[in-house]
């Protein structure tokens, strides 16, 4: 594709080829602020608006009976209440076969009361009692489910912190967990704001989001770790810059990761929301959808900048930062702009056209340099921005 050499490729092209140079870490304050605002909105909604909790949490009975498609909901509600049931919520739902079902949600009933309702419904709609679906949830069941979910959450967080601390390092664990809580709060906040019904399936989905959000973060951190493994042996790049390079290098992978996870979930959401009405699938899918989206965002825009901030506080990286600054001022060279180059463990400073606005001038062909033809230089060599640098 020789034409790409002539003109600067578009964003999609650069994404596809992994040649983005987003200043994600330089602009981190903006992302922090955005995340903070979103989290505050979500938290505020959770506190002041609360959740629309399903029968599974507050206790109650649900009956579902086949009904003619033109069934009168008001009349049906009056009928159910005439059976001595208070506060019945009556709605119609469609089945995947296109039939109409009347869904009746009531306060907790005794078994006898429930049987009475089933018998009456069977008679009214002329169906066999065996075709009526019912669900009955004890009042304390929801508390147990919630308790278990919280227990699970806690155990999971601890396990993950230990795993990431061992596999990577504690600071990465801290950044990953913050990103994770961010995703959880946002997903829960969406439920509060939209007032979608929260069921145990929703809780499961939220717990699954944990796994995904971390999965995504780990893919990025894996690259950050690789790029910074030998970073102290040079003085052309700070930790933040190396991390930013990693994020850019894994940008498309991260988007692909999230997209490919989202695609099947959107299938769930579609079928759950449009074909089935209320049900397990829909309950799962919305939380998954929101959580995954937020997870993709947070691993790129939140977890990595946070990690960079945490790491830059370490004396050795402070020193590195100083070295890099010194070197740039001494050599009179402009601050090294991040370049896209798919190198592993050897972040290479490539040719620099200008500082922040370099991107337009630099197509992939000029920005990306292979180090191979360059003679190997010793550390602390000529501080020219033109020098490709290899370690190891």
């Amino acid at each position, binding site marked *: *594709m020789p034409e790409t*050499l002539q003109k600067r490729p578009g964003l999609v092209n650069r994404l596809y*080829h*992994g040649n983005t140079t987003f200043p994600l870490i330089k602009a981190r304050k903006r992302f922090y602020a955005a995340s903070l605002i979103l989290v505050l909105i979500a938290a505020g909604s959770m506190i002041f608006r609360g959740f629309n909790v399903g029968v599974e949490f507050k206790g109650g009975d649900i009956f579902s009976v*086949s009904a003619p498609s033109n069934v009168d909901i008001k009349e049906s509600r009056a009928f159910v209440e005439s059976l001595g049931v208070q506060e019945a919520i009556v709605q119609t739902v469609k*089945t*995947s*076969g296109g039939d109409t079902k009347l869904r009746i949600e009531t306060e907790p009933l005794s*078994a006898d009361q429930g*049987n009475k309702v*089933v018998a009456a419904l069977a008679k009214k709609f002329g169906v066999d*009692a*065996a*075709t*009526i*679906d*019912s669900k*009955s*949830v*004890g009042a304390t*069941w929801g508390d147990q489910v919630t308790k*278990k979910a919280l227990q699970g959450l806690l155990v999971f967080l601890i*396990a993950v912190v230990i*795993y990431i601390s061992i*596999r990577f390092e504690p600071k990465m664990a801290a950044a990953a967990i913050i990103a994770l809580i961010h995703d959880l709060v946002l997903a829960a906040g969406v439920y509060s704001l939209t007032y979608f019904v929260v069921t145990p*399936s929703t809780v*499961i989905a939220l*717990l*699954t989001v944990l*796994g*995904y959000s971390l*999965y995504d973060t780990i893919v990025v951190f*894996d690259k950050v770790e690789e790029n910074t493994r030998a970073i102290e042996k040079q003085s052309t790049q700070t930790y933040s810059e190396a991390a930013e390079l990693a994020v850019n*290098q*894994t940008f*498309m*992978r991260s988007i*692909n*990761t999230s997209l*490919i*996870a989202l*695609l*099947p*979930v959107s*299938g*769930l959401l579609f*079928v759950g929301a449009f*074909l*089935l009405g209320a*049900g*397990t*699938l829909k309950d799962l899918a919305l939380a998954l959808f929101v959580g995954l989206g937020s997870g993709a965002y947070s691993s790129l825009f939140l977890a990595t900048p946070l990690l960079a901030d945490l790491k830059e506080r370490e004396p050795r990286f402070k020193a590195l930062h100083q070295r890099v600054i010194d070197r740039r001022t001494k050599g009179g060279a402009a601050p090294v702009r991040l370049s896209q*180059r*798919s*190198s*592993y463990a050897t972040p290479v400073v490539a040719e620099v056209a200008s500082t922040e606005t370099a991107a337009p001038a630099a197509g992939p*062909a000029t920005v*990306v340099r*292979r180090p*191979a033809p360059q003679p190997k230089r010793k550390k602390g060599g000529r501080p020219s921005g033109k020098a490709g640098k290899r370690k190891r």
Partner: protein
Amino acid sequence: MARPGQTSRGQLHVGRYLGVLAAIFAILYSTVIFAGSGSSWLKPKLGLDLQGGAQVILTPEAEGGKKPNPAQLAAAVDILRQRVNGAGVSEAEVVIEGDQIVVQVPGGNRESIATVTKAAQLQFRRVVELQGVQQPVTTPTSTTTVVPRASPAVGTPKPTATTNKRPISSGLLAATPSPTPTLTPSPTAATAPDDADLVLSGAVYTPANFAALDCTNPKVRAGGATDLPKQEIVACDRDGSAKYRLAVAKVVGEDVKGANVGVDQATGVEVQVNLQFKGSGQDKWTKLTEEAFNQPPPTDQVAIVLDGVVISAPSIKSVINGDAQITGGFTRKQGQELANNLKFGALPLSFEAGDAEVVSASLGEDQLRSGLLAGGIGLIAVVLYSLLYYRALGLVTIASLLVSAGLVYGSIVVLGDQIGFALSLAGIAGLIVSVGITADSFVVFFERLKDEIKEGRTPRSAVDRAWVRARRTILSADTVSLLAAVILYFVSVGGVRGFAFTLGLSTLLDVVVVFLFTRPLLTWLSRFRWFSHSRLTGFYGPDGGEPSGTAPRKTLVPTTVQEA
């Protein structure tokens, strides 16, 4: 590619991986073929929400809201199993999940749930009248006797073992038909009365009820509402071979301290069930044995009634003022069962029905269809995206997904057969979600590959290099995903478990597929010339053109790769 030496060496490599995979498939599917039979053959076991039925999650609670201990829980499961199976359901399942007991009755209805959730009622009642019920095959029955436990109790010398060394017919029945003059065939077999009018075991005694009690009907034997300690009742024994008119309950479950199975010290072989009573219960029991002792049969028998059904009716051989032992030619298993029943009856264990659900067959079908539809849509979306983004390599993704699907399906069938894993709607959702995780492993691998090629490597060398790096990432990410699934599995109950289970299973299988299929396949494909065409793969060389190795190479790229 024209490198014969390497090719042959490499081919061996690829063949080995694929061979292992083929072996796994062969083992898995031969298990699948030999597992199961009839309608369930080659099909996964479906959960109740997909096939219709009743499910109830019970939280057992001991006295004072305490959690029951594992032994109590096991005894409770035993009883629940007998309850549902006694109701004529053969495939019902009772399993412990964490603190909860989950009861599933395929094809069950609201009644099945009511049967399961009622509290245990253990009563000791004297037998007033006994009728043997003529069974198609009459087997010899034996007398069960109660004797005091070997103790220095004054005036009650331990009687010698009574005439009961013959095998008993089944279960724990204690019918003594021989000396009874009232041995008559059951009168009510001709008409099949409406269920509502059935006289159930445990009903109040009236001459009419006694006559109408049809112990050959399993529904009758399942027992009914039975908390009538102050009244005489009619009852069947558990296998329906005898029916009783029973006096008021003088001793009840609360009076029982415990029960265990042991061996008669005297003979050393005969299995016996030892029964202990609490302080006040002991007095009541002593009084009851006083009343029954030396009475003409069958009134010398004391029926042990659980949930309105006679589980044993030993004759009293002496006044017992200590622990009692029940003998009757039990097998060890029968003895254990009786002891469990007594323990359970004694257990002040109540069940709270946390979540009871009745799914009609049509809703089950509907949910199954929706689940499959959602999975289909998701899968097609992933396939299209892979083809769009990775072009010809998308085919590798599709092939890998197919292999993965084959492994997952086989595993679910085998697990359904071996450990009773039933696929629920939440389980299907777990599978759908895991499509993302599986496909993502390929994304990680392909993106690495793309990077390597962009850096100037030939596709061939890039595959190996990319694999070393992608492997690390894939393993780390899958570990976290598995961690989530395992923890979710252990803290959840019911459908949620199904979700965690399938998610964990597919994550594990994802590792198998990536290692044994995707990677060898790519290695093999990289030997073909077309693999170097950017238009087919979407991989571009360093200058945005074709990957290295296709055009004349100007520069040699160092391939010094050292990766842990």
